[in-house]
């Protein structure tokens, strides 16, 4: 009897440890490498000289790395009417303003919903936000275009920023994270005579830093990569962003032209997003646990 009990106990302890077997490490490492293949290939191609680009048999990795593709990219863009710096500037400006703006607006709106759930209308408001999570942004694209057009904002920075500022996911994320803060904090501050405005900026916002950093990352990267919004909301070349520039050099779907310049541009677009995520990953993981929908 005693041996069975102790054997069971041993198995319990193994279970509690919850560590992976060597086999699981091998499988996961293999899967991770396969997943990274297209990205590795992208970086490798960006440095390939022309001779290596169309070799047969095709080579996956670069043999004699060169920076010529980046020069070609600059030259390809030279033949456009707008310098590459303009696309970069547009992308950076729109992505940073959108990220900052949506954090401020979402946090302001999330605070009452999280901390004053008995406020009349709060429940209905949040139900509406959850419903808005349930439809694809593509659904509202056409009337949104008509509204932006009516407001005379087509081909302006505001036309690309304002429509995406009030995102349902941003509000949802901030509200879920703020909910876990103890109410006593706010009450104590109120006893000390602090206004709601001060409580929000000096107590709440510093405490929910992981959440707003996460929202900034998602919002910045989402805007940076967004192809559809600038495609329909811009007309002149001066207002276009990097993803649109990419489709210009490439020559459209299914076409492979200026291969080296395209690979260089792809790398230029992808690298910043990877770096931002790596640097701030732990904030994201801290926040994501609260991103569940309680039914």
């Amino acid at each position: 009897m005693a041996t069975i009990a102790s054997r069971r106990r041993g198995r319990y302890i193994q279970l509690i440890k919850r560590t992976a077997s060597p086999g699981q490490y091998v499988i996961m490492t293999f899967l991770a490498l396969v997943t990274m293949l297209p990205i590795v290939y992208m970086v490798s191609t960006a440095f390939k000289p022309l001779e290596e680009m169309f070799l047969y048999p095709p080579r996956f990795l670069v043999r004699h790395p060169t920076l010529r593709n980046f020069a070609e990219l600059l030259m390809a863009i030279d033949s456009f009417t707008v310098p590459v710096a303009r696309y970069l500037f547009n992308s950076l400006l729109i992505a940073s303003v959108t990220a900052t703006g949506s954090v401020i607006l979402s946090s302001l709106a999330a605070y009452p919903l999280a901390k004053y759930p008995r406020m009349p209308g709060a429940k209905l408001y949040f139900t509406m936000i959850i419903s808005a999570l349930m439809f694809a942004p593509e659904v509202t694209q056409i009337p949104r275009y008509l509204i932006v057009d009516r407001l005379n904002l087509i081909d302006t920075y505001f036309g690309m920023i304002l429509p995406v500022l009030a995102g349902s996911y941003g509000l949802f994320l901030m509200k879920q994270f703020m909910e876990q803060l103890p109410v006593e904090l706010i009450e104590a501050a109120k006893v000390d005579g602090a206004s709601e405005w001060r409580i929000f900026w000096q107590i709440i916002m510093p405490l929910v830093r992981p959440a707003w950093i996460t929202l900034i990352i998602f919002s910045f990267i989402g805007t940076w990569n967004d192809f559809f919004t600038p495609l329909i909301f811009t007309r002149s070349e001066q207002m276009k962003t990097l993803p649109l520039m990419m489709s210009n050099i490439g020559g459209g779907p299914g076409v492979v032209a200026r291969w080296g310049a395209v690979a260089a541009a792809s790398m230029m677009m992808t690298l910043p997003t990877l770096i931002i995520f790596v640097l701030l990953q732990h904030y994201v993981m801290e926040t994501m646990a609260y991103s569940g929908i309680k039914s």
Partner: protein
Amino acid sequence: MAQALPNRWNAVKRAWREYRTMYLFMLPFTILFIIFVIAPVITAIYLSFTYYNMLEPPRWIGLSNYRLLFLEDDIFLTAIKNTLIFAVITGPLSYMISFTLAWLINRLRMRQVYTLAFYAPSLTSGIAISVMWLYFFANDRYGLINFTLFNLGIITEPIAWLQEQATIMPVIIIISLWMSMGTSFLVFLAGLQSVPAELYEAGLVDGISNSLQEVFYITLPVMKPQLLFGAVMAIVNSFAVFQVAAQVAGVPSPLYAGHTIVAHLYMHGFIQFEMGYAASIAVILFMITFILGRVSIRLFSEKGASS
């Protein structure tokens, strides 16, 4: 009735007096939300009953757009069929892969490295990375996949992956699955890390004897909010498939093999400027994702009631 009205008015006044600052906090977000989310939804519903080409004012035509869509527009039926095939495969598959990978990563050391490797595709711009996929699936012998299959002796002639009707959808599915370890994947991973260890210990006392039982009886019930979030995201993303399809197969794709609901919407809205017709497509997509989203919320809460 005569009394109810002033009462309600008083309640509004009381709420305003008590929560004025809070309502003001919500004002900027609410204004933009009304202009760019709620108003567009209502406008889309209205326009779906009209003929509107952006040159003349919208003309009311009742249900004609919907009748046309379902009874005469064969391409729309193809789009629905393609989207359904895509959603039925990609939705559940991406959901299960995300959870399984998150669960496995949670047991590994160097979690951050593995997390980054699987999440990296979601960080890339669709347009930048689809160019790489074009090379992988290139139609001639230079294509990496054709070359590999050729060398392994599986094929003797290169397959035109992006031209042939039979292979376009599978290619779109593969690329989408590759990109699908997104927000839900991170949410699952974080959720797994936040399951309290005491629960696992209590489970052992109650007689749980292997990892599978542990997942089903402890992990999944605790993670219900995260799982529901993942389900909603999987539904929305899989029914709204367009970007990848457009990037690798074009709009319209060869023989409409990669044509989806959103591709149809885009084609009629932004190429042919039939805004009324496009709006009716948007309304149908909206109803599909909304109903499925509601169903999943119902499903998750019923499980909660029974356990």
